[in-house]
């Protein structure tokens, strides 16, 4: 497919239509090797990787040359008589000691880099990263961020295109599977510390360009750090198998210079205020349903499916379910507090009053449930 499209671009370029630049960027994405990244640590890791790579290449060339020489020259068909020797303590000692010395040579820079990688002290910015099935949550812990927090989901376009049998032209999807609705924004030239944990199963937060991979483990808070030198967009993925949608919880880091970062913080605060204001009024059923469908698709459809039918034996259906058709209070309780011992999370801490009201309303009226109930944000507020 790629070859085809590249050929097409080359053809267009030859025709003077000037697509060379685009074709070039396609090639730039295409990599054989580890990224050097954009942080001091990712650069050191790359150097270490290349050093060990060249050492093993040299050893490989040495060993394989001897083998190949033997295969070519020491053949019975060439009439050689086999030699008699079959042991030599000197040789054995030699080829035990030489590799050992090489290992010491590797161990020194590896130790140095490891100590640097583990030193997360004196951070300027601290962000808590929490893994959820199957999204990331970011919480800015510094005073100037005033408790800013949000979820980061696979973006809607990729999410639609990745459904079984969707059969879309994926080259038209913006960064297929590597794009999110709310990227994490970081300041450049600051030491950023991440506190990584999980709400459910083990995930792992990996952004190759940052040289950061840290497991997110329930019950533990792991810390790691980064120092971005260049503004830009850096993409990564969850790297610890975390269930069905493990492949669909990417990470997007937006690195901005400090002043832009501050602007972004202020803008996020304003958005949060506005949303809180809006939640105070009484919402129409229609408005709740529209909002509810959005929330359902990002937070619930992963398990209960977009059609509300669930997955038999794994995730119960919403369509015709006892909870969605039963008393409103029980429904609110289940969504807000989850169900212990199952994959059903407590969404009370994850979603706003308006989002919860909307999604519960949606579940009670979509998929043929048709209860006609409208749950208001104020109902959620009083249930908290």
């Amino acid at each position, binding site marked *: *497919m790629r070859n085809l499209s590249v050929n097409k671009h080359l053809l267009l370029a030859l025709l003077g239509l000037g697509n060379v630049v685009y074709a070039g960027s396609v090639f730039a994405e295409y990599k054989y090797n580890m990224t050097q990244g954009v942080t001091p640590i990712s650069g050191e890791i790359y150097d270490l990787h290349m050093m060990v790579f060249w050492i093993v290449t040299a050893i490989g060339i040495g060993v394989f040359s001897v083998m190949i020489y033997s295969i070519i020259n020491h053949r019975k068909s060439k009439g050689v008589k086999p030699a008699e020797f079959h042991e030599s303590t000197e040789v054995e000692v030699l080829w035990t000691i030489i590799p050992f010395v090489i290992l010491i040579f590797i161990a020194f820079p590896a130790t140095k880099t490891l100590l640097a990688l583990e030193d997360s002290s004196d951070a300027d910015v601290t962000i808590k990263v929490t893994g959820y099935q199957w999204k990331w949550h970011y919480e800015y812990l510094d005073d100037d961020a005033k408790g800013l927090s949000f979820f980061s989901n696979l973006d809607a376009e990729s999410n639609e295109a990745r459904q079984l049998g969707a059969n879309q032209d994926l080259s038209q999807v913006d960064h297929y599977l590597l794009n999110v609705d709310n990227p994490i924004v970081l300041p450049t030239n600051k030491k950023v510390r991440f506190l*990584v944990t999980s709400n459910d199963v083990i995930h792992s937060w990996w952004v190759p360009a940052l040289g950061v*991979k840290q497991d997110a483990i329930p019950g533990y808070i792991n810390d790691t750090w980064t120092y971005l030198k260049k503004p830009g967009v850096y993409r990564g993925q969850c790297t610890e198998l975390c269930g069905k949608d493990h492949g669909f919880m990417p990470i997007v880091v937006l690195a901005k210079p400090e002043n832009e970062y501050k602007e972004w913080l202020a803008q996020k605060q304003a958005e949060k205020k506005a949303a809180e204001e809006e939640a105070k009024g009484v919402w129409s059923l229609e408005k709740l349903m529209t909002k509810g469908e959005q929330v359902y698709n990002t937070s619930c459809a992963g398990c209960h499916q977009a059609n509300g039918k669930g997955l038999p034996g794994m995730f119960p259906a919403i369509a015709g379910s006892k909870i969605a058709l039963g008393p409103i209070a029980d429904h609110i309780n289940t969504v807000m507090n989850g169900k212990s011992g199952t994959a059903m999370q407590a969404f009370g801490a994850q979603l706003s009053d308006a989002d919860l009201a909307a999604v519960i309303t949606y579940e009670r009226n979509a998929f043929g449930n048709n209860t006609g109930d409208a749950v208001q944000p104020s109902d959620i507020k009083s249930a908290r």
Partner: protein
Amino acid sequence: MSTATAHDTAHDHHGPPAGLSRWLFTTNHKDIGTLYLWFSFTMLLIGGAMAMVIRAELFQPGMQIVDPNFFNQMTTLHGLIMVFGAIMPAFVGLANWLIPMMIGAPDMALPRMNNWSFWILPFAGTLLLSTLFMEGGGPNFGWTFYAPLSTTYGPESTDFFIFAVHLLGMSSIMGAINIIATILNMRAPGMTLMKMPLFVWTWLITAFLLIAAMPVLAGAVTMMLADRHFGTSFFNAAGGGDPILFQHVFWFFGHPEVYIMILPAFGIISQIVPTFSRKKLFGYSSMVYATASIAFLSFIVWAHHMYTVGMPVAGELFFMYATILISVPTGVKVFNWVATMWRGALTFEVPMLWALAFIFLFTLGGFSGLMLGVTPADTQYHDTYFVVAHFHYVLVAGALFSIIAAVYYWLPKWTGHMYDQTLAKIHFWWSVISVNILFFPMHFLGLAGMPRRIPDYAIQFAEFNQLASIGGFAFGLSQLLFLYILIKTIRGGEKATDKVWEKPEGLEWTVASPAPYHTFATPPQVK
């Protein structure tokens, strides 16, 4: 009563009873070896079929064939079946066939237990596979089954998986006890420990690894079972437990486990290379010591699978140093094989071809292993396709290739027929080329950032995945040719001589081809 009499009579006549009961009730090491090998081959094909599903889904970006949950069941069962169903039983099968003949013993030391340890396997395997048809599907948490994904979040069928693992573990432990008892008690007069063929040595050490490692696995799954049903919280953080504890326990089993799957391979290669070099194995005693050192080190490196869980830095340093140290004894092995070939008189019959491919490709896998051992670099490699490439080089191009080499080396002794060498060479070249098309691009995928265990990927990974899939289909197909060659050889073919090869060493070549049902009823004298 009557069957018992018939059985005894059959023994008197030194021939196997006919029909199904021969296989059900057999206590003969050769029969049991054959059963193990066929079981293993069946599992190889089933696990291979699952790999085909995986490669078909990954052939291009987007989800085309299976849903993500089923994909996870495929990766999980592929791993479990290949490790516990294909590779391990194949080595036990080879041990059954060969160890008594190599040490001049009439049979295994504990023949009835031998029967039992085999016959547990088909039940365990069926139990494991049956989970695929249960409501909620089979295990979907990877062959490493990390908690809490496998405990709180596991499907209902997890309990059947736990029971299957218990059974597989019992089978392995009994097999290991039998092998140790046989090697330590049943050697022919004059067969001192330091005269034993290396295959016997590597299996003796492997058997000790099995006895030490399998109970740890049994402990891990039992704790899982208790967490799932009896209200304990060993691995549940919400109840005061520790999900990382699971990983420590699992890998305390899991790392020796990878050496369980490679030490017998070292033994096989050490048998084959001297035969076709017409020269004694170089550094026999250093091979034995290197195997023992690898076995010891395998117990103190487990946490190199866990560099990203947030261990204290002192722990990470210790595990890094211990891990890269393993490359020293492993290197010694490779150097010894090369020195054995050096100034030999080489010929390239089919077993030698596979052995040479093993040395080249296993060494490549060793190189990526050394790279992975370096903790900071593992920050980038961990849980990517680079790791997938690494362990398939050591387990497919390593362990599996050694098993195939062994089959081609000893098959004429087992069946009395020489196989079709042209077909076997086609099988070799087809496999060795396709296996590299399959696994080599995975190094690039991992380095470029593709995580493992994902059912779909970003489009920049498309070409290499497509290439790997093509290699995968070809490699899968080539094993059907292997099946054809095996059946053809069993049914007939050119009569094999007793020595089979020009100048093989070992007691197994002193008996007739095919090896009689009972060998060494009176022990041979070893000089």
